[in-house]
């Protein structure tokens, strides 16, 4: 891409012609506030929070949508822009329940952050407020459209990224709201329960049911790891609180999944602390598996393998290593078979 020169807030910047103003600014450490913008999605330009001033342009331009052009002179932080952004936040809050105390997204809410940044305590505008039923028509995803800011991110991610298209806006104008056709519960739509809509919702309008009330964003420790399901290798953050995984998210634009997850990646963590987990070695005694100490169990394993090797040779022992385990564990397992026992009888379920 062609390199071009622009000026943002008095700073000369060299950027490439395929960048938007917001991207070019971000590349150079200038953050432009936004709400409907998401890196995974096509720009939309609806929230008007990211408006900037461009010399010579007819009116203000949405920085998420507008591509830079040679010689563009941009201002992102004028008094007028500040006032307009504040008005927009005030308008949004005039139709938004102020229940941040109990809202699932408090601390992780773009609207809350904006209100904080622009010092909007209470909306000066009064008027009709939407009252929608909270929709928890399935075990995973809750929709509370009272908190919706109509950024369309749920609709767009479902359509543009997932290609599923569960939602669209229903009605128009003040009555517009995202929704399923004929208001059907999610299970009666093609919904795959990937929770991508949850991941992109900037407010508490769409939230995950399993993690509800399990911890605020600042109460959890995020541990970056790799998803344990299929071979895509999506990068995920395990949200850990008090020794438990309470939620899973994916860092946007990181790793092969670029922040996208499927139903298993996002919601398939409940097995980790399931009561069925094995917590002690077991040894078969009188036909039954009973608890035993590690010493006892390991000794028995070693003794039994040794016995087979001694009586029938190393190739009478077989090892199944695991496509579920780490590289290091697999390495050690084949080393065990080859170096410690002396057999190449090692395989795993790659064939299954």
């Amino acid at each position, binding site marked *: 891409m062609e390199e071009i020169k622009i000026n943002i807030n008095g700073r000369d910047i060299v950027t490439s012609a395929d960048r938007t103003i917001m991207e070019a600014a971000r590349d150079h450490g200038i953050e432009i506030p936004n709400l409907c913008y998401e890196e995974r999605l096509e720009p939309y*330009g*609806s*929230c*008007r929070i990211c*408006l900037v001033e461009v010399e010579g342009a007819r*009116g*203000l*331009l*949405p920085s998420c*949508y*507008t*591509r830079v052009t040679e010689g563009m002179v941009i201002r992102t932080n004028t008094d*007028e822009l500040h*006032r*307009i952004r504040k*008005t*927009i936040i005030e*308008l*949004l809050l*005039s*139709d938004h329940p102020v229940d941040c105390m109990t809202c699932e997204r408090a601390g992780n809410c773009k609207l809350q952050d904006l209100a904080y940044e622009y010092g909007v305590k209470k909306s*000066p*505008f*009064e*008027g*009709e407020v939407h009252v929608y039923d909270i929709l928890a028509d399935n075990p995973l995803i809750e929709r509370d459209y009272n908190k919706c*800011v*109509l950024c*369309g991110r749920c609709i767009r991610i479902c359509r543009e990224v997932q290609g599923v298209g569960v939602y*669209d*806006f229903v*009605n*128009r*104008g*003040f*009555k*517009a709201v995202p929704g399923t056709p004929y208001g059907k519960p999610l299970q009666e739509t093609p919904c795959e329960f990937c929770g991508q809509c949850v991941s992109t919702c900037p407010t508490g309008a769409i939230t995950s049911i399993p993690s509800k009330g399990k911890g605020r964003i600042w109460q959890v420790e995020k541990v970056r790891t790799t998803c344990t399901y299929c071979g895509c290798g999506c990068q995920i953050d395990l949200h850990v609180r008090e020794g438990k995984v309470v939620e899973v998210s994916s860092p946007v634009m990181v790793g092969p999944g670029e922040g996208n997850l499927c139903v298993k990646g996002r919601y398939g963590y409940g097995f980790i602390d399931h009561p069925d987990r094995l917590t002690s070695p077991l040894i078969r005694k009188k036909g039954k598996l009973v608890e035993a100490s590690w010493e006892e169990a390991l000794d028995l394993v070693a003794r039994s393998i040794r016995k087979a090797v001694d009586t029938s040779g190393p190739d009478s022992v077989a090892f199944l290593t695991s496509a579920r385990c780490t590289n290091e564990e697999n390495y050690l397992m084949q080393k065990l078979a080859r170096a410690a026992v002396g057999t190449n009888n090692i395989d795993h379920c790659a064939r299954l």
Partner: protein
Amino acid sequence: MGEERTRYKLVLGYGTCGIAAGANAVKTALEEAVEKGSYDVDLDIAGCMGYCFKEPIIEVTDRERDYSVVYGDLDAKKVLQVLEEHILNGRVIEEWVVRKSDDPSFGEGDFLANQHRIVLRNCGRINPESIDEYIAVGGYQAARKALTQMTSEEVIDEVSKSGLRGRGGAGFPTGTKWGFARKARGEEKYLVCNADEGDPGAFMDRSVLEGDPHSVIEGMIIAGYAIGAKQGYIYCRAEYPLALKRLEIAIDHLHQRGYLGKGIFGTDWDFDIKIKKGAGAFVCGEETALMASIEGRRGMPNPRPPFPANEGLWRKPTNINNVETLAAVPWIISHGGDKYAELGTEKSKGTKVFCLAGKVRRSGLAEVPMGYTLRQVIFDVGGGVREGKEFKAVQMGGPSGGCLPAELLDTPVDYEAITATGAIMGSGGMIVADSSTCMVDLARYFLSFTQEESCGKCVPCRIGTKRMLEILTRICEGKGVPEDMEKLQTLAADIKAASLCALGGTAPNPVLTTLKYFRNEYEDHILRHKCTAGVCPALITLFINEETCTGCGACLKVCPTGAISGEKKEPHKIDPELCIRCKLCLSRCPTESIWAE
């Protein structure tokens, strides 16, 4: 048209306005009578002649004497009398005459005499369903000339020279716009005719499409050639069934003649047109929303840039022009851009069609050269305010426009001059208001319209206009507070600056202009709890004139709250405590004895 020329030609105004006024009955009566009797006439129809206030009308042309008379306010009975008196007896029925061709001062003759018709050149003069009639008045000469004798650059130059600006409202120079689309990279390009005339109070596009569809199509053929688009779309409101029908007929005829399709006018240029019916969304008049709608999506606008000229329909370069703009193009090509530019002001050239409606005496279509003053349009053409009442305001540009007071009547019709007042030229709607129109209510009305029509995409328009509307409603209900005016003003400014498209960007205009020019009415509502126009229900009281009330009981029956009492044949009374000011009684009273204060 028969081979033998009859002496008289009868042309019936057969547009939506005429039909709404009863032209169908007139038509049937005429047809039956002509078939049975032996009148030396042939019948034809035409679109709206402009005298909407006199519909149904017919124009009787005496071919022998080269003289014509327009009769108005007809019905099935009256039209038979015209046949009888005028055709058989050769006697003009003076009292029904709207216009005489030899005496512009007679009747309503000055309505037309004060106009300068270019866009409406054929409206009401030819049968819109006949391509032959269009060709007979020089139709398709311009397209032929452009395609066979001019390069596309020359066509664009000619249009640029004419100074023609987008008549949809924004007033962007048409030649420049075409130039952008011409230069845009891409093999596939589209031309769209925006016939989604949604402004309440504007009907010139409908009138042109119904009265002279070929001129628009010819304009499209020329425009398509100029920008390099082989496919054209006409995006027309579904609310205009007659316009749609006539467009379809016209396009059929053109296909038959080889004027549309492959290798048109014997050249190797291909051009075709598809009609897309709107489905009821005002916002689709906005270019990007219109394109979304053509593509089969919700008509929600997208930010610009990228402009349609570079990335439009199906992401291909697209040029969008309004009906009136396109209808002017053939004239410009035929007569030359310079000729067109002779009319008008320095920056606004040519003519503009206005729709006069509201409390104006002669409502209808008025095409005047740019530079005429509002006073000339409203008083000289429109005949001033109805029932001799006092002019209070003119609303220009519909929900995107503004209300201008009498002091500004000398403002010339010119994009920049009108914009300076806070209104906009808009598409050409002019609603005249008199003392019985409440300006706060009118502002509230327009805002409720934009609120209703807001697509909901961007926050300022979706919530901002809603909050403005709520404040205005509050004021109309007498619950306004003085700070509301300030609040409206600042909110309006932010909505204008921050909205995604022109719908939101101009939505506050009616409020801002009324605040500016009719602040006293706001103050009356807020401070004195008075609606001087007697419109806002919460601020009025209904009275029965005991002198004229006959005690018929019509009002009593209809009153939903039982606020009216009175013995039969005795004057009735309204209990202001119970009255909810629904005004139902007012409309029911046969003697007009009920009034609001």
